[in-house]
């Protein structure tokens, strides 16, 4: 399946990926509303790690044999048969943080605004190209077959 990869050599740490991720997953899908009006503001599912000159965006790797899925005792995490994407059912999640504990990439996070609901990348469900990849101004993110 296709996954998102980062080329840290050309990641400029502009964080546009985070911004567009938030917009994409906001109710209005409008950047101004998403940031000014929509409260609580949702978390980006990609986040840019940065230290000195090094920076890169990171989001769920959608593992073949996901630890998070094995650890999830609420059944909120599941693998989409078709795409193989690891998805998350907010209804079912109880916020036990087992996934947070086991994810070796540390890309599942607690969304404190929406209480307990862990937040993770969904590859922009059904989108041809995830917005973070599409909107990266320097092509530092690529969406390709593993």
């Amino acid at each position, binding site marked *: 399946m296709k996954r998102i990869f980062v080329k840290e050599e050309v990641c400029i740490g502009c964080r546009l990926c985070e911004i567009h991720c938030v917009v994409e997953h906001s109710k209005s899908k409008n950047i101004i509303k998403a940031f000014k009006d929509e409260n609580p503001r949702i978390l980006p599912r990609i986040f840019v790690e940065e230290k000195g*000159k090094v920076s890169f965006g990171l989001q769920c790797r959608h593992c073949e044999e996901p630890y998070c899925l094995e650890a999830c005792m609420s059944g909120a995490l599941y693998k989409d048969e078709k795409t193989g994407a690891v998805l998350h059912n907010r209804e079912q999640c109880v916020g036990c943080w087992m996934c947070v504990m086991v994810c070796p990439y540390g890309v599942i996070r607690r969304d404190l605004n929406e209480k307990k609901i862990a937040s993770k990348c969904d590859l922009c469900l059904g989108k041809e190209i995830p917005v973070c990849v599409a909107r990266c101004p320097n092509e530092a993110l690529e969406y390709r077959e593993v």
Partner: protein
Amino acid sequence: MCIRQCAFEGHSYDPEKNEVISKEDVCVGCHRCVTLCPTNALTIRQTPLDFRANANWTARAIRDIIKQSETGGVLLTGMGNDRPYPIYWDHLLINASQVTNPSIDPLREPMELRTYLGRKPERLELDGNGGNYRPKEPLPPQLKLETPILFSAMSYGAISYNACESLARSAHALGIYYNTGEGGLHPNLYKYGKNTIVQVASGRFGVHKEYLDAAAAIEIKIGQGAKPGIGGHLPGEKVVEDISKTRMIPKGTDALSPAPQHDIYSIEDLRMLIYALKEATQYTKPISVKIAAVHNSAAIASGMVRAGADIIALDGFRGGTGAAPTVIRDNVGIPIELALASVDQRLRDEGIRHQASIVVAGGFRNSADIFKAIALGADAVYIGTSALIAMGCHVCQKCYTGNCNWGIATQDPYLEKRLNPDIATERLINLIHAWSHEIKEMLGGMGINAVESLRGNRLALRGIGLTDTELDILKVLPAGR
């Protein structure tokens, strides 16, 4: 966003007021923030604040004086001459054929831009007979260009590694050449040697056997259009690890190129260096000599050809630079159009035009400029600034600060990353493809299907709004005649 993007700290966040404020005085107008702002909230306008109108004491004149009276220093600048001198390209018009001579559709008919740069014999001597003749001796070394465009000398140091890599990769893909400038050749780029012209300049940075052997041709740099008679100065902070290695100078020391080449004080000396380099490379590579277009270029060029130069590179006063004293850039040298016209004519008058190819540089903005240059007599054209613009440069003229927001004229690893070589390479290739296609269209329109029939064909041009003297120098007819 804007705050992180601006290397000149033009934007800052005020926590009290919880808003982003901008400082117009440091803004260089590079458009980085405008381009990246996700909400298109930004635009940049000339600040309306100006001095009382005065034709002589312009704002620029006044500001310069203020700045210099504060610092007591020479004013620096980047890119090419930005003053409103006449641009002769805009006074030359191109011909097209009607009725009596069919124009040619480059998409259907062969349309040839291939160009060979280098010394050519006056006549071809053949061996053999009936059906299989072959040249008595092989031609002198030639540079094969699939389209008559090259990337001008821009040194690693003046521009970032990513920029160099992009130029090298696109030259390789296009079957043309890029020029290392005087910054030496980074080890990773040796693999593009077949498309590399290496420069030997007054600083002799990074010049050694492998460097010369790696290249397709060698260029001796005497002068640069943006700063004729002036040396170069790469400030120490730009001389980072890699650069110091490549240039073979201590890390952090200023890289100073003397104004003259201290082993060239006369034309005989030039001849010696040319032949030294030819010897060093067993006469396998054409040797180019680059000079700034100055008042007596024609005579100098003739001397250079007789001194053994295979390629004459002429750099007009609109040629770019990473850093030059503003007063020099804006006042020294002559337009490339006139220099080219007189050099080409002079070499023909002396019957030695075939002994060297002419490559011109200096502010070429589009395919028409290039087309007109070839019609005036150039074999090919060096483009620098337009290549940078293709890569993302917005001509803010702050190259000398090393804070290039587009990751081109900088060595700051944080800024350098902003230039993704994959993207830049693709954009450069696109630009050259586009221009080549336009040149083909113009050739076809004239009913010509090979660029050699345009080269020096000044009947393809007509002048408009030019004085008789200018027409005479350019050797073109006025429009309508």
